[in-house]
């Protein structure tokens, strides 16, 4: 983490010429900038340097602009505090803030401890998983702005937020309680059941049998009606919506087995199935709990959408600039946006010209030039010059909010495969109900007592224990196995669907490439060497913060450029040793020499030129690096028989170049999110099962429209909310492995279902004939469940097959 060349605090490489150090525990440590120096000194000076010992990820780089003097003052106004601050008692208030950049528990610790040192702060709780801070403070002594500034100064920008997390916490707590009741109940009832089974073998005094039955009933009642409540509410919801979902057969089986057990216990029979009821509830709840945890992890990033829009804006009124909360803005207000700031509302530029990074919204990787009269959208980031805009749409009406709504709608449609699974399961229960009714009708004329017993035996012996466990146990094991490999399953049916995927569609930007621009080729045009051209270019680009400039950052240049000016959308101009140079688009560069613009190869989008007042000196070909593991992953996917496609919002040439290098023959470029969605729908209509791998907000509706969607954890956090699966590390590798595991999971599900059906087919006739003895049914049922669970558990073992797929250690621990 702290090589000689990287910052002790934030881990970024230290620029040449910086020689800053901070004393941590008496040892000088190198840092990269004044901001990191200040923060590291602050942490060390407050006695909090233990943070560096336990952190598992580098600290966020402090943002000088964030700690500006006036930025946070606005939060002391009541309008700005509406959502996030509640009075606690007479003198104290409670605030909920969403904090950026929390990457591990040490960050949470650092924030808690540094805030507690402020006078007037009573209690601070930071949840590292959800990134939320709950602060109890005395506004009279410590205004909210001071707390927020203190957090921002450490590099953790706070955002005011409502108390949305409480719903997730409540759900988690309720699930844990249910799990505990079901678990304790299952263990108790199982011990009683064993006594009754052995009693059936060896003879048992009816008094003890009845006593065991009574206590079994006593314990399983809260398990069924408290722990099992989600299944009943789910079944009711399904029935009201006039469909038979997974919960319906579960609820029906539970109620019938429970009722039959009570009836039989009252009859003095040992045909009781309370143990099965509790076991069924417990195992199903475990599955639900794992699923819920994954869902929460993915869902708390929904908040990222709100984070795109800044909390404050600088409003211009009669030539005076005041900082106000975005909630206070009105339509028609004039707002100033400085470089580095995010646009607070949709509007039209009224003054200035700048480039805006809209990649979160449009997927366009290059910043877009926007001048007077042109529209800008909330959430885009100003990367070059100050400008002013007139507000046209706010809050819910912005493009950003529309994307959010599009996402909700796409998510509301369930993939058809999920329906099919439900359909089969519900048919089974319906069939069993008919068989039981038939058996009852058959025996009724000759022997009414036997009729009831046989019908019940049918219901119980076919109790979908094995059938019910078959799918969830395999899915849970498969989900765990995938999580170990770095692929998080956020939707219950994603794993099932992944096994059936026939097409994988990649969004080019950031999914197949690393997103960092690099120089691929230098083509000298005049009597300068390529290296010399690089050195001149690097000297100029040192003065720019544009992504292209990063490509030149590694070049060691002896030159020093002066009077460097940026021309938005065209390039840079500057002087090196009395020589006027330009770097940028070929036409822009050629303009000072009066010569015709240098012709560049067809993939024009990737070329920039360097020139002086006489001629164009050199051309540079810029490329976005392809991820090192991409080729291997794609090859594995091809071997698995999967068609690969690229559907990108980028320009045609770079997309074609990437597709060519990776051997992907089907690709499309310059697609809007709507085009991508239409393309996926067309594939689906042709019978394909489509997996989409994406990373941007613009992908969100596309991801939600796919049969199964996979988002890169390192990509825009928001994409994770709509994705069914999330890659935890910054690698595509788990995708190939994931498909293999999903297919194995599907195979195990099929084996399990096959076994459960075989068992039922053999046991049903015996039960229907009134032949089945209670201990046979009990043992048969338990063994069939056990076989199913053990078969599922073998998914958790790593096999040589997996080792062949992942040849590199996984990045899961880096994900923190």
């Amino acid at each position, binding site marked *: 983490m702290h090589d000689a060349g990287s910052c002790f605090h934030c881990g970024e490489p230290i620029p040449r010429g910086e020689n800053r150090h901070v004393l941590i525990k008496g040892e000088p440590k190198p840092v990269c900038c004044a901001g990191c120096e200040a923060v590291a000194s602050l942490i060390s000076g*407050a*006695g*909090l340097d*233990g*943070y560096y*010992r*336990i952190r598992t990820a580098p600290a966020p780089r402090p943002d000088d602009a964030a700690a500006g003097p006036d930025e946070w003052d606005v939060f002391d106004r009541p309008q700005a505090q509406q959502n996030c601050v509640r009075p606690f008692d007479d003198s104290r208030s409670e605030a909920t803030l969403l904090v950026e950049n929390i990457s*591990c*528990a*040490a960050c*949470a*610790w650092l924030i808690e*401890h540094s805030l*507690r*040192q402020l006078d007037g702060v009573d209690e601070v709780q*930071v*949840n*590292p*998983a959800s990134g939320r801070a709950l602060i109890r403070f005395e506004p009279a002594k410590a205004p909210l702005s001071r707390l927020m500034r203190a957090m921002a100064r450490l590099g953790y920008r706070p955002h005011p937020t409502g108390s949305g997390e409480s719903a997730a*916490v409540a759900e*988690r*707590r309720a699930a*844990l*309680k249910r799990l*505990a*009741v079901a678990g*304790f109940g299952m*263990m*108790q009832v199982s011990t*009683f059941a064993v006594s009754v089974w052995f009693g059936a073998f060896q003879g048992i*005094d009816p008094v*003890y049998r009845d*006593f065991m039955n009574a*206590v079994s009933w*006593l*314990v399983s009642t809260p398990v069924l009606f408290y722990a099992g409540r989600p299944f009943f509410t789910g079944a009711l919801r399904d029935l009201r919506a006039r469909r038979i979902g997974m919960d319906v057969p579960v609820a029906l089986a539970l109620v019938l087995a429970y009722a039959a057990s009570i009836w039989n216990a009252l009859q003095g029979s040992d045909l009781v199935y309370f143990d099965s009821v509790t076991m069924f509830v417990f195992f199903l709840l475990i599955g639900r709990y794992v699923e819920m945890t994954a869902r929460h992890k993915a869902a708390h990033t929904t908040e990222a959408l709100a984070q795109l829009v800044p909390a404050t804006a600088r409003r211009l009124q009669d030539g005076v600039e005041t900082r106000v909360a975005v909630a206070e803005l009105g339509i028609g207000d004039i707002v100033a946006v400085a470089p580095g700031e995010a646009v607070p509302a949709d509007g039209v530029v009224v003054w200035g010209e700048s480039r805006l990074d809209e990649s979160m919204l449009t997927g366009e990787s290059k910043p877009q030039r926007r001048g007077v009269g042109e529209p800008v959208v909330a959430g885009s980031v100003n990367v070059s010059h100050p400008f002013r805009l007139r507000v046209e749409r706010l809050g819910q009406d912005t493009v950003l909010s529309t994307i959010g709504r599009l996402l909700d709608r796409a998510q509301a449609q369930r993939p058809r495969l999920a329906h099919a699974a439900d359909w089969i399961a519900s048919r089974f229960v319906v069939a069993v109900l008919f068989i039981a009714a038939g058996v009852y009708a058959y025996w009724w004329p000759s022997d009414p007592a036997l009729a009831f017993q046989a019908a019940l035996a049918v219901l119980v012996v076919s109790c979908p224990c094995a059938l019910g466990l078959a799918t969830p146990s395999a899915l849970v094991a498969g989900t765990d196995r995938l999580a170990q490999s770095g692929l998080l399953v956020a939707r219950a049916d994603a794993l099932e669907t992944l096994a059936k995927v026939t097409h994988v569609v990649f969004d080019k930007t950031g999914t197949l490439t690393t997103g960092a621009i690099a120089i691929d080729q230098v083509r000298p045009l005049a009597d300068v060497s390529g290296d010399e051209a690089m050195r001149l270019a690097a000297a100029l680009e040192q003065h720019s913060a544009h992504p292209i400039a990063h490509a030149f950052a590694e070049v060691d240049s002896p030159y020093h450029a002066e009077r460097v000016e940026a021309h938005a959308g065209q390039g840079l101009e500057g002087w090196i040793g009395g020589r006027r140079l330009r770097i940028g688009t070929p036409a822009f560069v050629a303009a000072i020499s009066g010569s015709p613009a240098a012709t560049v190869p067809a993939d024009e989008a990737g070329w920039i030129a360097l020139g002086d007042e006489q001629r164009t000196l050199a051309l540079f070909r810029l490329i976005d690096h392809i991820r090192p593991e991409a080729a291997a992953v794609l090859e594995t996917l091809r071997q698995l028989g999967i068609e690969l496609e690229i559907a990108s919002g980028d320009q045609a040439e770079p997309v074609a170049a990437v597709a060519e290098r990776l051997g992907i023959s089907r690709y499309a470029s310059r697609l809007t999110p709507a085009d991508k969605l239409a393309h996926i729908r067309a594939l689906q209509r042709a019978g394909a099962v489509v997996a989409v791998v994406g990373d941007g907000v613009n992908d969100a509706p596309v991801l939600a429209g796919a049969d199964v969607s996979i988002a890169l954890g390192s990509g825009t956090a928001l994409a994770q909310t709509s994705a069914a699966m999330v890659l935890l590390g910054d690698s595509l590798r788990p995708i190939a492995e994931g498909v293999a595991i999903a297919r194995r999971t599907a195979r195990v599900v099929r084996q399990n279902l096959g076994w459960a059906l075989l068992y039922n087919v053999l046991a049903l006739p015996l039960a229907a004939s009134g032949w089945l003895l209670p201990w046979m049914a009990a043992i048969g049922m338990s063994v069939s469940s056990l076989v199913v669970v053990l078969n599922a558990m073998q998914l958790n073992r790593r096999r040589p097959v997996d080792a062949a797929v992942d040849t590199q250690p996984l990045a899961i621990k880096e994900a923190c």
Partner: protein
Amino acid sequence: MEILFIMIPLGIGLAALAVWAFFWAVGNGQFDDLDGPAYSVLLDDDPPPTRTKADDDER
């Protein structure tokens, strides 16, 4: 074997007690953050000197 009539209710009572304790712990937020406390043990051995018990008592 009459002892069962005492031992089994006793066992159920103990299980109920355990469930009650677990409910209390969940309600008390003991399971809300499973990562943070592991670190606080490591870190809190040299606490910042600014806040002491005396400060709290004054308040």
